[in-house]
């Protein structure tokens, strides 16, 4: 029996039902409705049945009928899950490959992250200070004989002029002494800490975060501001405010404020206490009274804080020449140097900013990008090399109906998964390695785990790395033709391996360039270290005369006391430490001097025993001697000074200086390094002058160990200087400080170079293993025909050797160019030796062969029956 046309319920209701009813329920619902309509139309009229049919249909308007419970979830997440499953299966099936891939990528990421954190730290230098954007230091560029030197020290009248005449531009102007180590005594406790004498505005300018007391406390000259850690060291948990500290056994100051320790990436990190300028003037003078009106007496740092809304360039143009009318000779220009530049652009050449640490920021930034690139290249190479293994999978997927975009999606999600696994590993590595890194780089870098921007960058970066690394395999693999792949006719020709070869060449170019660069950095350091210092540094100690007792002890008494201990070979005093010069003479003239020349001569005041203690070498004439009382009016010069003066026989010549008696040259000493070991030796004058001494220099007896000798001389100093600790420095340690920046850079460069080589080798290792596997049948047949293991090894290694050779040829000019331009910044520099290139190339080749030999030998020594029997 069928439903006649006239018995049919209203069609529009059926249509409506089909719209809203869930597909899996529709059959039964529609069936029920129709059956009931049939029953009713038999019992009553069609109208009644139709009306009830309408009511019944409406009664199905419920959520349980609309709900598509059995309908599938969106296709995207399902496919994504499938992609991830396949990816995980692939990873677990090829363990070596996965380890190489994930481990390599993780190492690349760690390097990139460390470098990123390092760069961030460098760029955020001094941003701790709230007035960061308005603070500037007054730099002073003087030009003599066409040569400009820029110094961060200025004269007192200059600061006064800025403060009074140009007050409308500046919020604050403050004079600040250089950092000196002071001996702080509280009761029996004695601590040596670095600090500055400063005018009262300075702590306000720096925006010190006060824990106790106020920033403006230095208006009272007997006040001192100290760091929190210093307060803890001196007073423990006691309230430090109002406590008395004895400074250098010379003055007493009262703690008027405690501030939060400055971070390591602040220029003033080393400054642990701020003392009042007026106190320094009233206790030891420090030349301030004499310098009040002297524009040529430049010995203090001047800091300014610009008024809000003032443009530094405009102010610079206004103040540029204000010192010029006041000076006697040469040219002088003033530059307000903003705080944001202090750290990264700290080198001046001929009065112009000439870079500085910013070079390292760029250098490491580039290295970071390259190391990450190496890791990505590994990933790409391995994926394409393995493409034949997965070609069948691609073919089958395509045959079933995958479209190309889906395949691209699959490979991209696979590589993003791998990069996330690598990220987890990388974060673990980062956490472990950061303390070591901080130590090597002399930093205090923290990871801000809670910061959103940190995670945004890291996650964004990881996705980007995944997409970047996966892009090539994704587009390459998805382009395979279904039929060819499934027939097994896929021939990966020359063209397909070309990009892979190019990537290997890129990798090795980077690695070899880094090797060469690192070797040259080390060579330069070694070259400067090997430079003859001109005296013997061993067992030479320096004592800073920072208390009145040390000044007041008669020279000869102290010397005889020290000699009596038997632990001292000799003792002398000098105006400066042997590793620095602070006073430069410009007014010296001599017979036959070119009148336009302004000679810059470093000047040391020394005692009779200086030469003997230091062990300098007299080239001409004689050393100072007590037998010649006239020596007080004589001078010893170094070879560089003799050269500057152009004197053939300098001994006996007179040196004159306005307002002072002439000095007669009694001797010429061999050049000694006083300033930077990378610069030409400074022309020097050594004069006999006992009054200007600041340092005691002691040569320990070589027959005793340094420890024993120090133990014997300590009581001597304790007796004459009871208020202070016996505080000394070794000259060779001071000297070694001159290399610390370069050595730090060299150490970091070594680490990064090693990692980049490691990454390149990791990639090669994986690549070689796949190459060998690919040619397994060929190797089997060759073996059967009589090829030796050696010839097979040769066959398999040939390609890689070729690639590395090409990389070497590219790396040589590139690395030569960069290292040469790096070396240009040093006056005293090594020449680039050809053997560096050869050795690096040979080294790279050796590493390559070692890496691939493991795989090639394994393949070559395999039993041919096993490889040929399959299929």
């Amino acid at each position, binding site marked *: 029996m069928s*439903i006649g046309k006239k018995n049919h319920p209203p069609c529009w209701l059926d249509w409506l039902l089909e719209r809203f009813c869930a597909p899996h329920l529709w059959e*039964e619902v529609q069936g029920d409705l129709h059956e009931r309509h*049939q029953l009713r139309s038999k019992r009553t009229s069609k109208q009644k049945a139709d009306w009830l049919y309408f009511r019944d*249909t409406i009664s199905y308007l*419920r959520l349980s009928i609309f709900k598509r419970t059995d309908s599938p979830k969106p296709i995207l997440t399902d496919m994504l899950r499938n992609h991830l499953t396949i990816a995980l299966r692939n990873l677990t099936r090829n363990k070596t490959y996965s380890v190489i891939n994930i481990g390599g990528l993780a190492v690349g990421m760690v390097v990139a992250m460390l470098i990123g954190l390092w760069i961030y730290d460098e760029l955020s230098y001094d941003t701790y200070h709230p007035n960061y954007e308005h603070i500037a230091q007054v730099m002073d560029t003087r030009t003599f004989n066409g040569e400009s030197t820029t110094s961060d020290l200025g004269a007192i009248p200059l600061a006064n002029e800025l403060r009074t005449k140009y007050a409308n531009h500046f919020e604050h102007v403050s004079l600040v002494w250089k950092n000196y180590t002071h001996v702080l005594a509280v009761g029996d406790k004695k601590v040596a800490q670095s600090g500055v004498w400063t005018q009262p505005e300075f702590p306000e300018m720096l925006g010190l975060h006060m824990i106790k007391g106020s920033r403006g406390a230095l208006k009272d000259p007997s006040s001192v501001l100290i760091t929190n850690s210093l307060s803890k060291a001196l007073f423990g948990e006691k309230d430090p405010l109002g406590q008395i500290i004895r400074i250098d056994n010379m003055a007493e100051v009262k703690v008027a404020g405690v501030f939060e320790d400055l971070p390591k990436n602040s220029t003033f990190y080393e400054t642990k206490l701020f003392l009042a300028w007026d106190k320094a003037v009233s206790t030891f003078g420090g030349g301030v009274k004499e310098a009040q009106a002297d524009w040529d007496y430049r010995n203090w740092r001047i800091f300014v804080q610009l008024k809000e809304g003032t443009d530094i360039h405009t102010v610079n143009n206004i103040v540029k020449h204000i010192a010029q009318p006041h000076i006697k000779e040469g040219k002088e220009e003033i530059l307000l140097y903003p705080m944001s530049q202090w750290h990264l652009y700290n080198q001046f050449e001929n009065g112009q900013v000439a870079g500085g640490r910013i070079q390292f920021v760029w250098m490491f930034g580039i290295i970071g990008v390259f190391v990450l690139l190496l890791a990505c290249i590994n990933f790409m190479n391995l994926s394409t090399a393995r493409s034949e293994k997965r070609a069948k999978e691609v073919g089958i997927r395509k045959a079933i109906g995958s479209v190309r975009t889906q395949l691209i999606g699959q490979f991209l999600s696979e590589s993003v998964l791998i990069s996330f696994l690598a990220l987890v590993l990388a974060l673990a590595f980062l956490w472990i390695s950061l303390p070591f890194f901080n130590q090597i780089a002399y930093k205090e870098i923290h990871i801000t785990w809670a910061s959103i921007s940190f995670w945004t960058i890291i996650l964004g970066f990881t996705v980007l790395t995944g997409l970047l690394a996966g892009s090539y395999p994704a587009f390459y693999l998805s382009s395979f033709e279904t039929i060819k792949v499934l027939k097994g006719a896929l021939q990966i020709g020359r063209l397909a391996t070309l990009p892979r070869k190019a990537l290997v060449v890129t990798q090795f170019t980077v690695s070899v360039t880094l090797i060469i660069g690192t070797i040259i950095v080390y060579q330069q350091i070694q070259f400067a270290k090997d430079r003859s210092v001109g005296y013997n540094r061993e067992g030479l100690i320096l004592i800073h005369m920072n208390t009145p007792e040390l000044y007041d002890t008669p020279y000869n008494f102290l010397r005889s006391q020290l000699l009596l201990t038997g632990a001292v070979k000799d003792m002398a005093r000098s105006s400066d430490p042997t590793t620095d010069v602070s006073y430069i003479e410009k007014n010296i003239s001599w017979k036959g001097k070119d009148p336009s020349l302004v000679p810059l001569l470093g000047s040391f005041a020394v005692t009779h025993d200086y030469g003997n203690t230091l062990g300098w070498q007299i080239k001409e004439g004689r050393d100072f001697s007590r037998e010649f009382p006239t020596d007080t009016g004589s001078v010893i010069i170094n070879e560089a000074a003799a050269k500057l003066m152009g004197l053939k026989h300098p001994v006996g010549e007179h040196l004159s200086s306005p307002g002072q008696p002439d000095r007669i040259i009694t001797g010429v000493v061999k050049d000694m390094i006083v300033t930077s070991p990378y610069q030409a030796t400074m022309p020097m004058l050594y004069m006999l002058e006992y009054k200007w001494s600041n340092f005691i220099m002691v040569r320990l007896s070589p027959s005793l160990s340094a420890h024993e000798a120090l133990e014997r001389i300590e009581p001597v100093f304790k007796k004459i200087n009871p208020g202070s600790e016996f505080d000394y420095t070794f000259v060779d340690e001071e000297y070694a400080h001159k290399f610390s920046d370069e050595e730090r850079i060299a150490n970091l460069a070594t680490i990064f170079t090693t990692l980049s080589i490691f990454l390149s080798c990791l990639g090669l290792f994986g690549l070689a293993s796949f190459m060998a596997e690919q040619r397994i049948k060929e190797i089997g047949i060759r073996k059967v025909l009589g090829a030796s293991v050696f010839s097979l090894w040769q066959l398999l290694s040939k390609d890689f050797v070729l690639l590395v050779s090409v990389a070497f040829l590219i790396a040589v000019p590139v690395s030569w160019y960069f290292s040469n331009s790096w070396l240009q910044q040093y006056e005293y520099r090594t020449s680039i030796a050809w053997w560096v290139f050869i050795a690096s190339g040979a080294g790279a080749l050796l590493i390559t062969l070692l890496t691939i030999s493991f795989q090639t030998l394994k393949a070559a020594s395999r039993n041919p029956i096993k490889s040929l029997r399959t299929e």
Partner: protein
Amino acid sequence: MRRSDLGEFEEIVLLTVAVLTPNAYSVVIAEELEAQTGHTVTTGAVHAALQRLEDKGLVNSQMGEATAERGGRRKRLFTVTVAGSRVLHEVQAVRDRLWQRILPNALPKIDLA
């Protein structure tokens, strides 16, 4: 299963399923209820009650054969599960106990005829 989880209409639908097994499906249940109560019962209401009973595990269902009246569409046949049977028995026991405790003459007399 708590007693309160079973609505009055659900209870009566469940009971009807038991009565009509093995041929219990929405249409006959609705017709039966209409015949028994005299009120119009829509298939939609019955269908919804059956869905809820099935969700609670009191009835089982499977697709039956197709008939011409249904336009060749299959019907869904329902049977009471063990849990359903237990609930029905519980409900009956509660009602019986209560009926037995009604004292004679406690209810006003009505003419049942």
